[in-house]
């Protein structure tokens, strides 16, 4: 009997699913080795089939997407029971990622804007979808939207984490093949909680740009200057979260001249990516005069949004107090 593979997408953009397909020919190895148990994004699977499966019957589950509503939570629990290895696949599952940015506001504010304020909607009565609505035909239920977005490890016990938004295809291929190799040859599984598809160093390790002592007088946005291709972006005054982000993606963004946003999550020793970036950036400001420091700091565009772009739910405070 072929081991079962489940791929589920919760509050996700589907990018991780596409990334899985991006492993091109290796998908054949997967197909050959695994038997797909669940992949709602790719094909029509029914929840009740999975519920019908005995516990721990799915060998590997790649769970991508953050926990935004009750359905995500149910599936998370379900897949935890049914699978041997539950893997938080991609930044949304690992730390909340872009959907996690909702934690800056409240559920009501989001719905208010989405269904009433936003310019393109016409909703004079101001109707907002409710979890249970009575209609003549009966009751329609939709999943309950939670006020705070959670990452997968915060709701269920997760075996491994594959960071990245999306995880790079070569990393995915590498992870899947190692899992296949382990299962086929009975190698021991890596210790629970390890981060696969990424190294222990920070993004700067893979970045080819030259780096020097950093003394920054002014922060600027990438479009304001023509960046020097060889020099570290931070030294050119652009806020780059590379130093406080795990390496693994091969510094793809930075080599294209765009600063790293921190999608591969916090490095191994760090508890809060945002706080760390604040500490690092502030230390290299080149001034000892309080007013000048105020002026320099004011040039950092949207510090909270920049430093917690991918890791707000996973940060120490998890959400903004609103």
């Amino acid at each position, binding site marked *: 009997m072929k081991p079962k593979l489940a791929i589920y997408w919760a509050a996700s953009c589907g990018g991780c699913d596409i990334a899985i397909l991006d492993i091109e020919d290796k998908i054949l190895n997967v197909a050959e080795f695994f038997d797909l148990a669940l992949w709602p994004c790719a094909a029509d699977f029914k929840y009740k089939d999975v519920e019908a499966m005995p516990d721990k019957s799915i060998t590997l589950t790649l769970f991508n997407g953050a926990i935004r509503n009750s359905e995500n939570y149910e599936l998370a629990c379900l897949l935890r029971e049914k699978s041997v290895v539950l893997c938080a696949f991609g930044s949304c599952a690992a730390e909340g990622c872009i959907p996690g940015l909702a934690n800056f506001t409240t559920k009501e504010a989001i719905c208010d804007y989405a269904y009433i304020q936003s310019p393109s909607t016409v909703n004079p009565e101001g109707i907002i979808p409710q979890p249970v609505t009575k209609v003549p035909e009966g009751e329609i239920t939709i999943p309950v939207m939670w006020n705070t977005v959670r990452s997968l490890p915060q709701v269920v016990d997760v075996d491994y984490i594959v960071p990245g938004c999306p995880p790079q295809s070569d990393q995915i291929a590498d992870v899947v093949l190692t899992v296949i190799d382990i299962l086929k040859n009975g190698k021991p599984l890596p210790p629970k909680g390890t981060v696969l598809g990424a190294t222990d160093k920070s993004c700067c*390790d893979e970045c080819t740009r030259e780096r020097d002592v950093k003394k920054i007088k002014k922060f600027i946005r990438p479009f304001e200057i023509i960046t020097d291709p060889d020099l570290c972006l931070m030294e050119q005054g652009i806020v780059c979260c590379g130093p406080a982000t795990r390496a693994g993606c091969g510094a793809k963004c930075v080599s294209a001249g765009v600063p790293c946003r921190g999608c591969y999550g916090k490095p191994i020793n760090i508890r809060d990516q945002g706080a760390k*970036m604040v500490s690092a950036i502030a230390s290299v400001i080149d001034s000892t005069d309080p007013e000048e420091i105020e002026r320099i700091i004011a040039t950092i565009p949207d510090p909270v949004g920049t430093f917690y772009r991918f890791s707000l739910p996973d940060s120490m405070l998890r959400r903004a107090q609103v």
Partner: protein
Amino acid sequence: MITVTIDGQKTEVEKETTILKAADKLGIKIPTLCYNELIEPYAACRLCIVEVIRGKRSRLVTACNYPLRQPVEVRTNSERVMKLRRMNLELLMARAPAAKIVRELAAEMGIEKTRFTIDNPEETCILCGLCVQVCENLVGTGAISFTDRGPDRKVATPYDVTSDACILCGACAHFCPTGHIQMTDIEERILHSELTLGPNTAISIPFRQAIPNAPRINPDYCIHMKTGGCEICSQVCPKECINYDDKDEFEEIEVSAVIVATGFQDFDPAPMKQFGYGKYANVLSAGEFEQMNNAASPTSGRIVLENGEEPRSIAILHCIGSRDDNYHKYCSRVCCMYALKFAHLVKEKTEAEVYQLYIDMRAFGKGYEEFYQRLLSEGVHVIRGKGAEIIPAPPDESSEGNLLVHCEDTLISKFREIPVDMVILCTALEARKDAPELARKLNISTGADGWYIEAHPKLAPVSTTTDGIYLAGACQGPKDIPDSVAQGAAAAGHVIKILNQGELLMDAAYAVIQEEYCSGCKMCNGLCPYTAISFDEEKKVSVINAALCKACGTCVAACPSGAIVARHFTDEQIYAQIEGILV
């Protein structure tokens, strides 16, 4: 080089040299009156006229300033030249009959008497202009110059009034060939040596015990420094050791330890108007009295008033500026004992009465109390009460002192007015004005009163928070000589330990970079003030030099990938403390 033949002798000289110098080289003497090689030739006396022959044209020129540019033949004693010289001297004898040098030169040329009218038989000035030149160009003062014109021309000061520009250097008298200028002493203009230190002529040894014990140039009085002229000292110094452009230089030396022994500074009692320091004569600060007592002092140790007489009575006031809310709250610790020493010296050297005005007699050291008792037995009047005010005594003869000291004798709770001739103010010891600046340089800190802060008042009185820098003496707080010596020895002890141990015992806390986590982002490189962090180019990781690291932890906090661990202050330890303390 120009070849020139003078009276038949050939020689080679540089272009532009004058005939006089060329002749000098050949040992041929050409008489001159208004020439001196220190001064640019003025060519006024015309005595040095010689005949210069080029081709068939001969010309009469003054040898002292004629620049040789082409090969020429010079005759210094042709008949024509001798005739001119004789007439010149004869005329000069008419102008300055009393000038000895003119008579001698004339006698040499065979002239006894002058055919021309003599206006002033005593006249000695031959208007050669040497004095004016030396005063104007060499010394640079320009106190005298020529006045009037034609035969009435004479050397004088403006309006023939004694010039105040004249600095009595005597250069004009020295250069005057006929001795026309004499030096006279003008009482108020002579530079008396000041009471405090040695003579301050332009060059002097500062004081007898000066180290190095060698003369130095005082730029305030040296004419060369002011005008670029003079330089007579460098001409007369046989060993040519005078170097005018000697300047202070900064040297950088690498040391492994520093002992700060910058000492204290005397409190200036002038702001305390009530004591009239600087206003009334014979009110001395302790420092000044000490100087007077020194054998090398201008009064060579004798205790005298400003007018030279011996004092009949002396008052010594304690705690001037110390134990005083307006100035220094602390007690300067040493004044009581040196005040007693002063009293003893006065008793020994003079028959003057001594009055000690004190608040508390702090004779705390070994043998100090016994010294105090001995003094009491020697008849020193001791009054417990701080000196309140000093006013000059009314000038009638009867009073026994020209100063009146008002004070309150708290023991008999009466106000007293003591007539004395001299008052000594025991001024406080205060931190040097530049102490904070040095502290910042050495990275040690100063207390509120400006004294340097020791690492620990009891356990480490001579070391500072920065290891390798030690304190000794009064810079750390007022103390007397024995204590300072003791502290000096202690500091030296520390230093010797470092020097021969060869290594410095470091404390356990310092930061380490974990290579496996460091991504070489170099965020930490610029942060360390002790430059302990460097970058390893091959491994592409940053490295911390443990010896230099002071374990402040700033780099730990800044390291974005958490690769730097501060031993004894790791993140986990601090997080644990935070969680624990807030539970």
